[in-house]
C-alpha cells in the first residue's frame, strides 16, 4: 500500500519502519529533517511538506505530540486534495479534538480515523502495539493491513473519537495502576517488609497485573529511565480530567492520580518514567533513604 507517515519520534520511527518491513511503500515527513534519515536509509522516500506526503497516497498516518499539531498536519494532508484518502492519527489527543478534526477532514473528503496506541516504545519496535480505532468501518478496513504491521490487538472501538475515549480509559487504568503498585510498595517498606517479596506474593493472586509485573520490577530495580515519561502521563490524565469536567463526570481516583503526576512535573521528575511516582510517595512518607 502507498502510505504517508508524519511524525518520526520515539514511537513514530519504529512504527514507520515496521510498515516498510511489511512491504509497504512509505513516504515520510517530519518537522526536523534529520529525523527522517533512518527511514530514508531503510527505503522510505522523503516529502517536503505535509501536503506532499499525502499526494498519490492511499493512507496517511500521523504520530505527533498534541491536538494542535494533529490539526495542523491534517490540514496539510487534506490540502493535497487526494481522492478517497484515509487519514489516521495515532497520537493521543482529547476525544473532542479528534471528533472535530474528523469532521473537518470529512468536509474535505478525507475519511479520518483516530487510532491511538498503547504499548510504548517497546511495543512500537516489536510491532505489538494495542491499537484502538474510532471512525467509519470502511476506513478501518482500509487501514487494517497497515495496523497489522504495527500492532497485535487491533480493535475498531466505534465512531469518530471512540479510539481516543478508549485510550483515555487506558490511561486511567495504567495511571492508577502505577500509583497503586507504588503505594503498595511504599506501604510494605514503611512496615519493614521486603517489597520484592510482596510483589512476588501478589503476582499469584487477584492483584496480578502487567503493571505489577513489569513496572513493579522496574520500581524494585529503581530503574526510572523512560519508558513512558511522567509528563506524558500527566498530559494524558489532563485529557481525562478535562473531559470529565466538560461532561459532568465524577472521577475521584483519576483526579487524585493526576495531581501526583502534576507534582512529578512540578518537581522536575517529568522526564523520568511515570514509575518515579514511587520516589514522590517515599519522600512524602519520610522514606527519604529509599527516595533516590
Amino acid at each position, binding site marked *: 500500500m502507498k502510505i504517508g507517515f508524519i511524525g518520526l519520534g520515539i514511537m513514530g520511527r519504529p512504527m514507520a519502519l515496521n510498515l516498510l518491513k511489511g512491504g509497504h511503500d512509505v513516504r515520510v515527513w517530519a518537522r526536523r529533517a534529520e529525523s527522517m534519515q533512518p527511514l530514508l536509509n531503510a527505503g522510505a522516500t522523503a516529502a517536503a511538506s505535509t501536503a506532499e506526503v499525502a499526494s498519490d497516497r492511499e493512507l496517511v498516518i500521523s504520530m505527533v505530540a498534541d491536538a494542535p499539531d494533529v490539526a495542523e498536519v491534517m490540514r496539510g494532508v487534506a490540502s493535497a486534495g487526494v481522492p478517497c484518502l484515509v487519514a489516521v492519527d495515532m497520537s493521543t489527543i482529547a476525544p473532542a479534538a479528534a471528533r472535530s478534526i474528523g469532521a473537518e477532514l470529512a468536509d474535505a473528503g478525507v475519511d479520518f480515523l483516530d487510532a491511538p496506541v498503547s504499548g510504548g516504545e517497546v511495543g512500537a519496535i516489536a510491532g505489538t502495539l494495542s491499537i484502538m480505532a474510532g471512525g467509519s468501518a470502511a476506513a478501518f478496513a482500509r487501514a487494517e493491513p497497515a495496523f497489522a504491521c504495527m500492532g497485535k490487538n487491533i480493535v475498531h472501538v466505534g465512531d469518530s473519537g471512540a479510539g481516543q475515549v478508549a485510550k483515555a480509559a487506558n490511561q486511567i487504568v495504567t495511571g492508577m495502576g502505577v500509583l497503586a503498585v507504588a503505594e503498595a510498595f511504599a506501604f510494605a517498606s514503611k512496615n519493614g517488609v521486603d517489597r520484592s517479596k510482596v510483589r512476588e506474593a501478589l503476582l499469584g493472586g487477584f492483584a496480578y497485573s502487567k503493571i505489577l509485573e513489569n513496572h513493579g520490577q522496574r520500581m524494585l530495580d529503581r530503574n526510572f529511565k523512560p519508558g513512558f515519561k511522567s509528563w506524558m502521563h*500527566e498530559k494524558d490524565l*489532563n485529557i481525562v*480530567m*478535562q473531559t*470529565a*469536567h466538560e*461532561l*459532568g*463526570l*465524577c*472521577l*475521584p481516583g483519576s*483526579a*487524585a492520580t*493526576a*495531581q*501526583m503526576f*502534576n*507534582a512529578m*512535573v*512540578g*518537581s522536575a521528575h*517529568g522526564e523520568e518514567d511515570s514509575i518515579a511516582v514511587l520516589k514522590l510517595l517515599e519522600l512524602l512518607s519520610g522514606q527519604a533513604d529509599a527516595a533516590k
Partner: protein
Amino acid sequence: MKVGFIGLGVMGRPMALHLKAAGHDVRVWARRPETLAGLDLPAAETPAALGAACDVVFTMITSSADVETVALGEHGLIHGMAPGSVLIDCSTISPESARNIAAKLAEKGIAMLDAPVSGGVQGAIDATLAIMAGGDAGVLARVRPLLDCLGRRIVHVGPNGAGQVAKACNQMIMVAAIQAAAEAMRLAAASGVDCGKVQQALAGGSAASRVLEVMGQRMVDRNFAAGIEARLHHKDYGLVLEAARRAGVPVPLTTAVAQQLNALMAQGWGRDDTASLLRVLEQQ
C-alpha cells in the same frame, strides 16, 4: 467620568447602577439588547463604539473566550478605546488570558486591570465586594474612586494576572469550605443530630466562617435556590486546575472537590446554589 459597562447580569447590573448613582456618566453595550430592559442607560452599537465614548470601561462576563471577544474581537474595545483609557475586567477568567488581553491592549496604549470580585450578588447590591486587582499601581490609583463605588476592600495584588490568581485562590478556599460544610452537615444528619444546632454551635468556635454561616444556613434550610450558581464555581474550578497544572503544583483537595462539582453538574443542579454539594453527598 465617562464609564462604559459590559455584562449586565446579576452582578453587573447593580454594579453599573452604583456607578451611575455616584454621578458618573454610565453607558452600556449588551450582546443581547433585551438584557438592557428597565435600565435607563444609553447603549452603544458595539464594544468599540462604547470604548470610543468612555474613559473607563468595565467588563463583567462569564468566560475567558467572551472577554477576549469583547476586548479584542472584530468590533472589540481595542478598536475604539483611546490611548490612556482603562479597561477594568471584573470577570473571573484565567490569569493567562488576562495577561494576554492586557498585553494586546498595551500595544495600543490602553491600560487594563484584572479586577475580579468576591462577595456574590449580595455584595454587588450592597457595594461591599472584595476587589483583587492586577495591573499597574498608577492606573489603579486613577480608577480607585470608581472601584470605591463597588466594594469595600480593594487590594492591589500585583501585575496583570495577579488579580485573577488571587481570585483562583479565593475560589479554591471557598468551594472547599462549602464541601467541608456539606460533609459536616451530612455527618450530623446521618448521626441523628440536628444540623441547625450543629451549625449554630460551630458558629462560635474555631470552625466559624462566612461559608458556614451563609452556605451552612442554606443547607440547614434545604434552600438550594442560587445565591451563586454552582455552574460558575464549576467553571472556576476548571481555571484553578488549569493554573495548578501550568505551575506544576499539586492540589489534591481541590481536585477531589472538583469531582464533587462534576457530579453536581451531572445531576443537573448547575443553576442551583453550590450548597447543593450536600445533595451530591446524599446520593453517594
